[in-house]
Every structure is written in structure tokens, then in C-alpha cells.
């Protein structure tokens, strides 16, 4: 079925965002975007009010009639209405889950991966070997009051004792759901199939138990999809039913409502698959930072629950330490005053930096929040633990083991940033610098930002299962993602290794689209930006002695890369990146790097004058 128009909303905890996509001259493009405050809480307590307000803004901006009173007109009728309407939601704190597995590093981790992948916040991971006594676990379950529990454990046909023991602990705790006192807590069992009867006996009465395929049927394999799908089903059936106005909203949509991060993850996974590339996506919000990655065709998502730019900004300071934040601040500042300022941002989270100094400090904190979130992500996105590998003689000399991280920065093709501090930075150069400084890409990496955070809506669009809509919706999602969602910042080129100051670490020979040729020599400690728009550039890169640009030490590369709104950034600062501990040297270096990409031109003028 040809889709002429698609309306999609994302109901966030503070703002509801609506986008209108239309088929124009054979291609899908974003037409307009509207937003309004979310209305889940008192005095409104009906999510659809915020949705209607956001859609009304879309109507005003597009001049298209979409609403008929309080109804969205579907399908499109002449020029009125839209063919389909879809939505995601993270309002009311999103989907909060607790997961349980027998061994923390194995089934516990698989269960966590399934829950995160479905877009939930994992409040705790219970495991037989987590070091807590049964009564401590019970107290914890009672305190947390999750929306849903995922219980796993054991391989199919294996021992049932431990997973039944976990079920007994759950039964003893008799957990109550977070929202609503009058329904049973949904529990998904995705463990050893031999234990199903016992689990039903233990939990069947007191919880709303649902049994699905084992998450780890054999040690060597994870089977996350059935659990992820079941989480989405129960999210719709139970959790959403309790949230104010969602029943009505669900009756409006042409596809199930997805949790916002679940939709973003689904989109990133599809992009990586379609383009056959490795991708890292990050969404830095006020309270949390989500990181999504696809390496070696394996998808992972992590949520750093308390690393964000407003509500949890003080936690970034606590975890990163003041010294690490100050590494990125190119001026002297009284430390006590700085902590009070950051504290005031936490208690007045909606304020914006008016002065340049405030902006620089906020972006310094963002670098640390991103860096810490990525460390967490790397330690979670790993090979399956506990898997015996066949080893050859040559492997025996390498100390590689199961459980090593999948994140390989040299493999990374595309790094996408989103969230206020990255998407709305006054200069795109600032977004590029924040991404480079915190993720430290190696070799050749394309950088982009999601301009207006459309990924959730595109994710749910790409995930529509109705057969007659699926193909067109997917096509629309990809076209809009490529043309309207991503702002291509450019490409970062960073050799790895260390060299002496001023030594050439990279020679780059570029052939631009217009045929012009340029050669640049990048010295150690230098950052160099070449302004090239989003167009192909043929490039030959020769690393300095002992350095690696992606294909091994001293090995040159010839390839095609793309510029962008920022251009091509050569990062000769080495990996790992060392920042001088001497305050004067540090400030000099930071200013030099800022100048190189025109990051804070006014600040440098002010401070130089």
C-alpha cells in the first residue's frame, strides 16, 4: 500500500513531539515538526491532550487539516488527514524492569540485555550468585516496585533448582507493580524449559506469569528476540493501560506504541544491517544517557541511569570528579563556585546557558557524561561469557577470553549523537568536538547528529509489522533518516599510538570532488579541520612511524570519505588522549584545539584581548 502521509509522535516525560512525513515527488520527506508539553501528570492526566496540542502545531505549520475535533483523520482523505498515525512513549518514567538470572555474568546478563534492548530501564539484576542473602533480595524487590520482571536461568534441560529458587524469592517478596494497586505484576519467564511447571506452581497464582522461549537455550547462544517481543506486548497490555490516557492513544495508533529507547535501538540496528556498518548512537538527556551500538552484527544498548545534563548533572560531577571536568575548561575558575553553579543547574534543570562561560562548562560536563557512559557501554557490550572456545596453538598464546568487549573503535564507521547538548549546541563544531573528545574514535569515523531527535518516531515507523504497511513505512523511515534526520558533521581521522611532540603522525593526500588536490601533514598534538561539505573525497592516509590509521602499524590506506557541515577533522593528539596536568599548558592546548575547529571563536577573542 502506498503511504502518502505519516504522522508520528513521541511522548517524552516533559515534551510530546509530533512529526509529519509526506511523499513528495516520489520520496519521503519531513514536512514539519510540532511540540507541546506532555500531559500525563496532574492537572491534565491524559497523554492525548499533549498529543493533540503537538498535532495542532503541526496543523498550523503545515496548513494541513489533520484533526477532526479530538480525532486524527486516517486514512488521508483528499488533502485532509494522514494515512497512518504511530507513537512511542517514555512518559511517566518509561518502562522500569527488574531482571533475574541464575549466574549474574551469564543468564543475568542475557536477561539484562533483552530488557535494555526492549527499551526498558533495568532497576536491578538479581542472581543466585550476586552476593546478597535471600532476605536482602526480597527487601530490594519490595522497595523497587518495578513495572515488570523478567526471570531467566539455566539452559534448556539443565538443572532447575537455582531458577526455581529465584522464583521462590520472588514469590516470598510478593512484589506489587509501580502503577495501580489492582492488577498483578507481569512476570516473564524465559529460562530452562524443564522448570516451567515448577515456575507456574510457584508464581502462577500471585503474578501475571507469561512463559516464553529460553533466553539462553544453550550456553553458546543467546535468544533475546522472544523475550524482547514479550516485553513489548506486556508493556502495551499492562503498563500502558495504567498510564493516564494511554488506552485512548492506543486506539488511535496504527501500530503498537513502543518504548522510546526501544524504537531508537530498532532503527540503529536496521541502519547498521542495511548499510553493513558498525554504528554507535548516543542520546544524552537530562537524567540519563543511552548508548546503542552494533559491532560484529550484534546489537547492544545500555542506559547510564544517572549520567545526564540536568537532573543528574551533580552525579556526573561526583562520578567523573571535578578534576576531570576541569580538564576541558580553558580558563581558571573557583572550584567551590563551580560546584554551586552545577548544583543550581540540578535544582533548576530547565535553565539554559546565557553566557559563553556557562556554555563551555556545560559542554565540559557533557564530555565527561558521555565518556563515562561509553565506558559502561564497552564493559556491557561483550561476547557471551562462559562459552568454551576452540583454541588453536596460536590462540593459546593470546590471552583473549570470552566476555571481551565487542566495541572496537577502529571498526566503528558511524557515530551519531543526539540529545539537547549535542543536537542544539550553538555551533556544530562544538558537537563534533564533544563527540571526538568523549568517544575518542580511532582510524576513520563518520560523525553525525540527529537534528531534532526524530529517531524514536522513525524507529517505530521502521518496525511496523502490519504486512500491507511494513515495506512502505520502512522505506519512508530510511529515506527520512538519511535526508532529514541526520546532520552529517563530517569525518574524524585519528591515528592511534604515541609520538614525540611536533613529529608528523599522519600525511593525508586528498582529491576533492572538484578535482583539486591537497596534502596535509598532521603533527603530534595537533587538531586540523579542513572545510569540505557532505560530498565524497578520495583520500590517501599514510601514518607516521609506529602509528596505525586502521589497517595496521605503518600501513597506508586509500579510501573515499565524506565531509559535512564541520568538514574533515584530523586528530593528531594520539590515543589514548593525554591532557597536560600543568594548568597553563592545558589551557594553551585547549585554546589551540578550539581555534583549530572554530569552536568558541568569541571566547578566544575575549580571552586573548
Amino acid at each position, binding site marked *: 500500500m502506498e503511504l502518502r502521509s505519516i504522522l508520528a509522535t513521541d511522548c517524552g*516525560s516533559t515534551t510530546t513531539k509530533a512529526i509529519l512525513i509526506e511523499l513528495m515527488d516520489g520520496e519521503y520527506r519531513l514536512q514539519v515538526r510540532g511540540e507541546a*508539553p*506532555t500531559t*500525563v*501528570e496532574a492537572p491534565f492526566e491524559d497523554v492525548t491532550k499533549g498529543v493533540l496540542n503537538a498535532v495542532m502545531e503541526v496543523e498550523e505549520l503545515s496548513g494541513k487539516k489533520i484533526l477532526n475535533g479530538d480525532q486524527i483523520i486516517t486514512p488521508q482523505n483528499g488533502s485532509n488527514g494522514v494515512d497512518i498515525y504511530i507513537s512511542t512513549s517514555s*512518559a*511517566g*518514567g518509561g518502562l522500569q524492569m527488574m531482571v533475574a538470572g541464575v549466574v549474574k555474568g551469564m543468564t543475568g546478563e542475557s536477561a539484562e540485555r533483552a530488557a535494555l534492548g526492549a527499551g526498558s530501564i533495568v532497576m536491578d539484576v538479581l542472581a543466585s550468585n550476586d552476593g546478597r542473602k*535471600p*532476605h536482602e533480595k*526480597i*527487601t530490594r524487590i519490595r522497595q523497587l516496585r518495578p513495572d515488570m520482571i523478567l526471570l531467566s536461568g539455566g539452559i534448556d534441560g539443565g538443572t*532447575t*533448582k*537455582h531458577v*526455581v*529458587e529465584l522464583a*521462590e524469592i520472588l*514469590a*516470598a*517478596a*510478593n512484589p*506489587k507493580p509501580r502503577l495501580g*494497586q489492582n492488577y498483578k505484576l507481569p512476570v516473564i519467564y524465559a529460562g530452562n524449559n524443564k522448570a516451567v511447571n*515448577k515456575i507456574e506452581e510457584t508464581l502462577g497464582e500471585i503474578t501475571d506469569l507469561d512463559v516464553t522461549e529460553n533466553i539462553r537455550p544453550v550456553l553458546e547462544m543467546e535468544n533475546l528476540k522472544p523475550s524482547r517481543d514479550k516485553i513489548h506486548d506486556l508493556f502495551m497490555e499492562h503498563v500502558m493501560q495504567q498510564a493516564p490516557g494511554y488506552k485512548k492513544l492506543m486506539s488511535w495508533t496504527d501500530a503498537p506504541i513502543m518504548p522510546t529507547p526501544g524504537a531508537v535501538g530498532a532503527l540503529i540496528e536496521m541502519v547498521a544491517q542495511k548499510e553493513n556498518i558498525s554504528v554507535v548512537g548516543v542520546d544524552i538527556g537530562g*537524567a540519563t544517557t543511552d548508548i546503542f551500538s552494533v559491532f560484529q552484527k550484534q546489537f547492544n544498548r545500555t542506559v547510564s541511569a*544517572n549520567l545526564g545534563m540536568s*537532573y*543528574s548533572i*551533580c*552525579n*556526573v*560531577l*561526583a562520578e567523573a570528579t571535578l578534576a576531570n571536568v576541569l580538564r576541558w575548561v580553558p580558563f581558571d575558575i573557583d572550584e*567551590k*563556585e563551580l*560546584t*554551586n*553553579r*552545577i*548544583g*543550581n*543547574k*540540578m*535544582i*533548576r*534543570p*530547565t*535553565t*539554559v*546557558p*546565557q*553566557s*559563553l*562561560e*556557562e*556554555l563551555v562548562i556545560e559542554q565540559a560536563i557533557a564530555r565527561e557524561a558521555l565518556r563515562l557512559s561509553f565506558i559502561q557501554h564497552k564493559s556491557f557490550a561483550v561476547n557471551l561469557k562462559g562459552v568454551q572456545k576452540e583454541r588453536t596453538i596460536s590462540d593459546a598464546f593470546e590471552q583473549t577470553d570470552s566476555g571481551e568487549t565487542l566495541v572496537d573503535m577502529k571498526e566503528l564507521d558511524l557515530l551519531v549523537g543526539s540529545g539537547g547538548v549535542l543536537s542544539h549546541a*550553538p*555551533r556544530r563544531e562544538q558537537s563534533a568536538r564533544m563527540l571526538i573528545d568523549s568517544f575518542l574514535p580511532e582510524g576513520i569515523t563518520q560523525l553525525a547528529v540527529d537534528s531534532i531527535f526524530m529517531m524514536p518516531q522513525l524507529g517505530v515507523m521502521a518496525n511496523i509489522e502490519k504486512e500491507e504497511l511494513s515495506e512502505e513505512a520502512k522505506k519512508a523511515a530510511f529515506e527520512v533518516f538519511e535526508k532529514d534526520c541526520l546532520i552529517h558533521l563530517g569525518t574524524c581521522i585519528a591515528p592511534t599510538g604515541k609520538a614525540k611532540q611536533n613529529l608528523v603522525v599522519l600525511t593525508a593526500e586528498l582529491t576533492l570532488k572538484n578535482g583539486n588536490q591537497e596534502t596535509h601533514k598532521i603533527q603530534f598534538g595537533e587538531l586540523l579541520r579542513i572545510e569540505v561539505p557532505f560530498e565524497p573525497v578520495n583520500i590517501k592516509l599514510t601514518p607516521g612511524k609506529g602509528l596505525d590509521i586502521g589497517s595496521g602499524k605503518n600501513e597506508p590506506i586509500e579510501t573515499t570519505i565524506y565531509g559535512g557541515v564541520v568538514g574533515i577533522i584530523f586528530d593528531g593528539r594520539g590515543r589514548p588522549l593525554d591532557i597536560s596536568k600543568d594548568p597553563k599548558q592545558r589551557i594553551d592546548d585547549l585554546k589551540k584545539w578550539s581555534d583549530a575547529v572554530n569552536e568558541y571563536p*568569541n571566547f578566544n577573542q575575549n580571552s586573548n584581548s
Partner: protein
Amino acid sequence: MAHAYTPGLKVLHETIIHKERRLPLKGIVLVENGKEVTPDDIVAKTDLPGNVQMVNVANQLNIDTEDVNDAMITKEGTAVSKGEMIAETKGLFGLFKTNVTAPVDGTIEVISDTTGQVVIRESPIPVEIDAYMSGFIKEVIPEEGVIIESEGVFIQGIFGIAGESRGELSVIVDSRETEITEDMITPDCKGKIVVGGSFISLKAYKKAIQLKVAGVVVGGFNYFDLEDILGYTLGVAITGSEDLITSLILTEGYGKIRMGTQTFDLLKNHHGKFASMNGATQIRAGVIRPEIVIPLTKDQLKGDHKDSDASEGIQAGSLVRVIRAPYFGRMGKVIDLPSELRKMESETMVRVAIIEIDGENIEIPRANLEMVEID
């Protein structure tokens, strides 16, 4: 007329206050509609299910899990006392028996022949909820709690720690600029809610705790000193469960910031009256701000309050407070709300308000303004 929605803190000299007092689980409501209550009156109570202890009987007796039922002396549903024998092996010809005793007083809830575990539930934990403030029962929520209504002063702070507290209000400074110093906290302050001006030092607050002062209401406190009080770095502003004798409410924020005129004058006018306060703060969706409530008797009420409508938002003429550097803490009057985006020094494009501060017109992002909601 141009207007903008901006969060504001309430500073109301006469208003109707409703407080919901709800049990964590269903229980019994002890008061009826219309009943007058004082802060210490218990309005509802319940019993939380007791803690659970799990005893691995199979392991301790070294028997197979399916034999656990045979070894049990006590059955499901039986009450047991601490130290009482609950299971025993048959032994060899009646000799060499081993046994398991109950680690706590409680009831045997489950005996599992799959895992060999025995679940013992301890006695229920009673929970009571008091009225928190004087007033009358406006509504009974059957089995769950009540809504109490009162009329009086209602002031919101920006941040607080520790939960509910109550006591006589005592303004111990001359002006809203004055800091509370250590020497101002005297044994006289015990059990009272003391009010200061711009700041309280760590030493002075610690002395307040030591002298069992009920609460402190002040303009500012240092963020980095919180760690000393709490024992950990406060990463997110979700507070209220801290076990501190002296609740603390900041009316302005972190640092030395003089208390807003309206707030200070209002508290000063009610010096000596009995107040309830709650430091609990939650800055997330569903925001909870700390509060001070001073219930007034009929003869103390002037009846001159008007219901303000905060939903109108900021308009030309509104009184606002700047809540971010570089004009942090300053108050001014809105002159104009231009609709187009303006570029700030940071190059951020934002909607602004033109504010008159000390005779000068200044452009401030609307997001950095807070409406001062007075009646």
C-alpha cells in the same frame, strides 16, 4: 498579550492547603470526615508484611530436596519461635540426628521440595501515619488514607533535605541578607524551625543538628558541604528519606543568595506561630518541592487572599527572579516578551524576556526566569 510558561515557587500568605496522607499498603483509616486534627494525631495505620528468612533445610541436613517434607517437624502455616527445631533427620537407628532451628520468630510459609528451602515470615511491621499539619479531614480514602484541609501560609522552597518536621517558627536574623552563623544557634532553638537570611554555614547547621533544632529555612547553603552532612555526594535531587533531626529548606539555591523579600517578610510576620515543614524534594517529572505550612486559626485569617492563576504564566509586569548566572538571584519586572528568538552571548538562540533590574533593561532567556507567585 504575550506570555510565557515558567515554573514558579509559591509564596502565599493565605491559601487553602490540601495534604494527602496515604498508607503504603491498604489498612485502616482512624478518623472520620470533618474531624479536626493536630499534627501528631494518627490518621491511618496498617501492617506491612513481615520480613522473610529463607532457610536451606536440604543443605543444612545434607539430604535430597525431595526428602525435605519428611524431615520437617513443623508444617506450612505453623508459628515458630527463634531457636525452635523445625526439621530433623531420622539419623542412623535413631542416633546421629542433625537438626535445623528457626533463625527468627515467625510463621512457616513455604516448604519447597524442588530447592530444599523453607520460607519463614516474621511478624508484620506496624506503620502509622500522622496528620502532619493542623486542619480537618476533608476526605477519607477508604482503607488508604485521608485528605486534610487547612487554611494558612504556604511557602515552597527550591531544595531541601530530611523529611517532615514541625515546631514554632523563629526568625533569628534581622534581614534577608544576613547569614546564620554558629553563635546564633542557641539552646533556645531546640525543637523550633529557625529562619535565616542568605546562607547557613556547615558549622552552624551541624550545631543546629546537635541542639535538636526542628528545622532551618534559609536562602542558600553550599552544595559541596552537603556531602559532609549526608555522607555521600548528592547526585540527583531526590531527598526526604535522610535520617536527620534538623530538616533544611533552601528558598533560593546553592551559594550565598539573599532570601526573596516576600518569603522573608511573610515568615517574619508569623514569627512565633506553629509551623509544619517538609524538606522532601524530587526534581524529576512529577516534581516535589520542599514546603513550609503555617496553619492559621479563623481569627488569624484576614480573608483577603485571591486565587492566583499561575497558568497565565509570565506577562508584562510580572515579578520574576533570575535563576541562572550571570544575574542569578536578582529580581525584576518583566517589561516585554519579544516573540522572535534572540542570540545570547553563548550564541544559543532563545526566547527572551526583557527585565528591568535596578533601573536597567536586561535581556534574559525565559527559561532562566522563575515567576514569583504571590497572593
